[in-house]
C-alpha cells in the first residue's frame, strides 16, 4: 500500500518540477476529456498550446498573449505577496475596476488637454483607486477583526455597481449618442496606453508587469519587508516575536495588491479595452488567484504562469471557435490545471512510501 510521509525538508526538486508535471497531467486528463467528447485530443491540445505561438494566426495571437498575461501577472504578484503573509485578498477584481475608474476619470476630466503629464497622473490615480478600495477590507480587518476574504469579495460587487453607474452616468460619453460607455481613449492620445511594440502586444501594462515581477522577487528574497511577509505567513507568532506588527503588515500587503490591481485596470481601460463600459471587467482579478498559485506564489514563477494562463485563454478561444468545443470544456480544462497543480504540490512536502509489513 502507498503511504504519504512528511519530508523532513521540503524537496527543492518538486518545488520546480510541480508546474511542468501538472501541465503534462492536465494535457493527458484533458485529452481524455476531449476524446470522450468525440474530438481529436491531439488536435485540441495542439490548438490550445501550439497554434497561438507557432500556428497560422500566430502573428496576431502572439500579441494577445502579453495583452492577457500583463494584467494577470500584475494582479497575481500583488495577491501573492498577501497570500505569502496569510492575508487573503480575494477582491482584486473590484480593485481592478476601481483603478480603471479612477485612472479614466482623471484622463476624462481634463479632456481634451494635451500634456505629457496626463498619462503619468492617470497611472498614479489608477494605483490610488485600487489601493483605496483595498484599504476598506484592510482597515475593517485591523480595526474590527472582520474577515478580509468576505469583505474584499463583497466589494467586487459594489465596484461592479459603481462601474455600471460610471458607464451610464458620470463617465458617459457626452457624444456617445446615448449609448452607455465612456469616451474611447484611442481617440485621446495624451491619455492613451498605446502599444509600444504591437507584434508582441507590449504596452506600458506589460512593462509594469515584468518590472514588478523582478522588483517583487528582490523584495521577497533580499529585503527585510519580504522576510517579514514570508515569516508572517509561515509562523504568525514568530513574526510577532521578530517584531512584525500584524496591523502594519495587513495594510502594507492589502495596499500593494490593491494598487497593482488598480494599475492593471488603468492600463487595460486606456489600452486594450479603450473605454469604461458596463462589461469592462472580464475576471482577471479572479483568474489572477489561480495564476498566483500556479506560479508558486513566487514572482518569477507568476510571470511564467501568467503566460501559461494567457495561452489557455487564447488557445481555448481558438479551440472553441475552430473546433466547436463548448466554453465549459475549456473552463474544465483550466480548472484541471489548478487541480493537478495542487495535487502534485503535495510532493514538495510529502513523499510516497511503500508501506511494508502489516500496515
Amino acid at each position, binding site marked *: 500500500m502507498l503511504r504519504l510521509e512528511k519530508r*523532513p*525538508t521540503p524537496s527543492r526538486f518538486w518545488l520546480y518540477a510541480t508546474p511542468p508535471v501538472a501541465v503534462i497531467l492536465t494535457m493527458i486528463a484533458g485529452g481524455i476529456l476531449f476524446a470522450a467528447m468525440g474530438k481529436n485530443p491531439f488536435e485540441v491540445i495542439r490548438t490550445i498550446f501550439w497554434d497561438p505561438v507557432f500556428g497560422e494566426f500566430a502573428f496576431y495571437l502572439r500579441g494577445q498573449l502579453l495583452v492577457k498575461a500583463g494584467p494577470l501577472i500584475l494582479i497575481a504578484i500583488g495577491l501573492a505577496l498577501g497570500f505569502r503573509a496569510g492575508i487573503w485578498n480575494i477582491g482584486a477584481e473590484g480593485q481592478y475596476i476601481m483603478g480603471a475608474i479612477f485612472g479614466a476619470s482623471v484622463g476624462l476630466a481634463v479632456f481634451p488637454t494635451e500634456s505629457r503629464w496626463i498619462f503619468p497622473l492617470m497611472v498614479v490615480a489608477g494605483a490610488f483607486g485600487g489601493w483605496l478600495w483595498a484599504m476598506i477590507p484592510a482597515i475593517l480587518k485591523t480595526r474590527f477583526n472582520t474577515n478580509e476574504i468576505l469583505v474584499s469579495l463583497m466589494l467586487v460587487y459594489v465596484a461592479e455597481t459603481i462601474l455600471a453607474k460610471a458607464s451610464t452616468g458620470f463617465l458617459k460619453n457626452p457624444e456617445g449618442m446615448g449609448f452607455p460607455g465612456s469616451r474611447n481613449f484611442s481617440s485621446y492620445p495624451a491619455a492613451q496606453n498605446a502599444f509600444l511594440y504591437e507584434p508582441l502586444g507590449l504596452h506600458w501594462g506589460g512593462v509594469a508587469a515584468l518590472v514588478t515581477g523582478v522588483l517583487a522577487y528582490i523584495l521577497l528574497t533580499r*529585503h527585510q519587508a519580504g*522576510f517579514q511577509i514570508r515569516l508572517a505567513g509561515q*509562523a504568525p507568532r514568530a513574526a*510577532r516575536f*521578530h*517584531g512584525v506588527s500584524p496591523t502594519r503588515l495587513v495594510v502594507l500587503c492589502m495596499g500593494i495588491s490593491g494598487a497593482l490591481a488598480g494599475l492593471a485596470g488603468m492600463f487595460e481601460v486606456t489600452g486594450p479595452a479603450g473605454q469604461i463600459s458596463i462589461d469592462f471587467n472580464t475576471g482577471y482579478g479572479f483568474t489572477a488567484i489561480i495564476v498566483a498559485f500556479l506560479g508558486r506564489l513566487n514572482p518569477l514563477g507568476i510571470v511564467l504562469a501568467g503566460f501559461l494562463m494567457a495561452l489557455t485563454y487564447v488557445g481555448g478561444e481558438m479551440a472553441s471557435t475552430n473546433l466547436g468545443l463548448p466554453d465549459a470544456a475549456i473552463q474544465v480544462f483550466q480548472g484541471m490545471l489548478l487541480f493537478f497543480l495542487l495535487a502534485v504540490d503535495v510532493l514538495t512536502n510529502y513523499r510516497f512510501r511503500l508501506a511494508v509489513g*502489516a500496515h
Partner: protein
Amino acid sequence: MTGTERQGADARPELLAVKGITKAYPGVIANSDVSFAIGEGEIHALLGENGAGKSTMVKMIYGLIRPDSGQMTLRGAAYQPGKPAEARRLGVAMVFQHFSLFEALNVAENVALGMESPPPMRELAARIRAVSEEYGLPLDPSRMVGDLSAGERQRVEIIRCLLQDPKLLIMDEPTSVLTPQEVEILFKTLRQLSSEGTAILYISHKLEEIRSLCDEATILRRGKVVATCTPRERTAREMAELMVGSALKTPERRVAEKGEVALGVSDLSAASPIPFGTSLKGISFTVAKGEVLGIAGVAGNGQDELLLALSGELKAAPDKVRIAGHAVGDLGPVDRRKVGLVAAPEDRYGHAAAPDMSLVENAFLTAGVRKGLVKNGFVDWAGTRRFAEEIIAGYDVRTPGPDVAARALSGGNLQKFLMGRELMQGASVIVINQPTWGVDAAAAAQIRQSILDRAGEGAAVVVISQDLDELLEVSDSFAVLNEGRLTKPRPTEGLTMDEIGLMMGGAHGMEVAHHVA
C-alpha cells in the same frame, strides 16, 4: 552493563513481557531489540533522555503504533494491539504528558468522551466521586476543565483510566506539571494502585522521583536497553550516567560582582492575549548585572505571558519595564533588542522559530538588529549565514548545514541553536523560558553553563522554568509565578524544597475539592 538479571526478591507473576521489539523510522531507529518485563503490581520505570525511544516504546504498548519486529505478551498470551481501544479492552491504560481535554466541558463530560460506551451522566459522576475518594484524588465531576489547575487536569486523565480498571497504567512524564506537594499526592495514589495489583509503567527522566517510587527500572539510550536496575540501590548520578553514557559535568559558576540594576519591572499587570491564558497581576522584580533570577511555577500560571511582556510582544506603560534605567514598557521587540534585551520563548516550533524556514533565516529572526544584519532595509544574508554557522559551531548543533529547515532538527538540537542565537548577541539582559525543555542531559548542562557564563560576563538573566533542580542550579535569586502573581524574589541559597512548594501554592485546589467530597 547490559545484564538483565532480575532481583531474586521479586517474585511477582509476569504481567507484560516485551521481547526484542524494534521500530525504525526513516533515518532513525527509535527502538532496537528492546526487551523488558513488568510484574503484576510492579512500578516499573522507563528511563532515558529525550529521544532515547521511551515514547515510541509505550506507544507500541498502547497500540498507537506497531513494532517492525519483536513480540509482546500480556499475562502469557500474545499481545498485539492494533489500536488503543484494543489495548484498553485488554486492561492497558495510558495518561499522556499532554492532556487531551476539552476546556469548555466539565469533568464528567470529558471522562465520558474517552469511553467507548459511557454510562448515564449521573451514574458516571457518582463513579468518578467514588474512585476519586478511594484513591485520594479529590475531584468534583461537575467542574469545568477550563477552571482546573494542571494537577487537577491530570487527575481527570488518571480517573478516566482508573474507571476502566486497568491492569497496566502507563504514565508519560506525569510530574512535569505538578508542585512538589502534588507529586506526593500522586505518588501515594500510584503506590496504592500498585498494592492493589495494578502495574505501572512510569516514564520519566527525573531520577530522584524514580528512586523514591519505582521498583525496577529499564534504562534506554538511543533506542537500546543499556541497563536494568533497582533504582533504590543506585544513586541518581549513577543512573544519570547510565542514561547519558558518559560522566556528567556540573556547571560551574564564576561569581560576578553584583552590579547595578539592569532590568526592573514594577507593578506590571497585563491581560493575557492567549485564550484561557493567565493575566499578569502586579509583577515586580529587579535583576542586577551578573545576577540570575530563577522563576519557578507550574505551567499555565503566567509564564508565557511574562515572557511576552518582557520580550515586547505584549506592551505596557513605559515605566513598567526598565532596562538600565530606560523606560521600555511601550517598546516592541525590535526596540527592546536595540536597548539590549533578548528573549527566548518556550515554544520552539512556531514562536521562537519558524519551523519551515532555514536555520539562516531563523538566525535572522532575532539577530538582525543586534548583529547589524540589515543595511538600508536589505538583509545581509551572507553575514546572517556566517552568524548561523557560528551558532552551529559554538553550540554543537547537529545539522547537515545552515540551510536545512528548522523543523528537520531534533527538538534538542533546535533548542541549542535557539539558545545560541540569543546568548551570542552580547545582550545585557537575557530572558529565557524553559531553556532546557526537551533537551538531553549533556546539552542541558551545556546550555546552563553558557547561561552562567553570560551572567559571569555581567548580563542580567531571567530564567523561567518548571524544572526546580535546574533553577536551584543556576539562579542566585528565586521567585515563583503563581496565578499571574510573582512572589518576592529570595536568595536561592538556603531554600528548602518545602519552602519552595509553599511558595508555589502548595497542593493546588485541594481544599476546593475536599469539601465537595
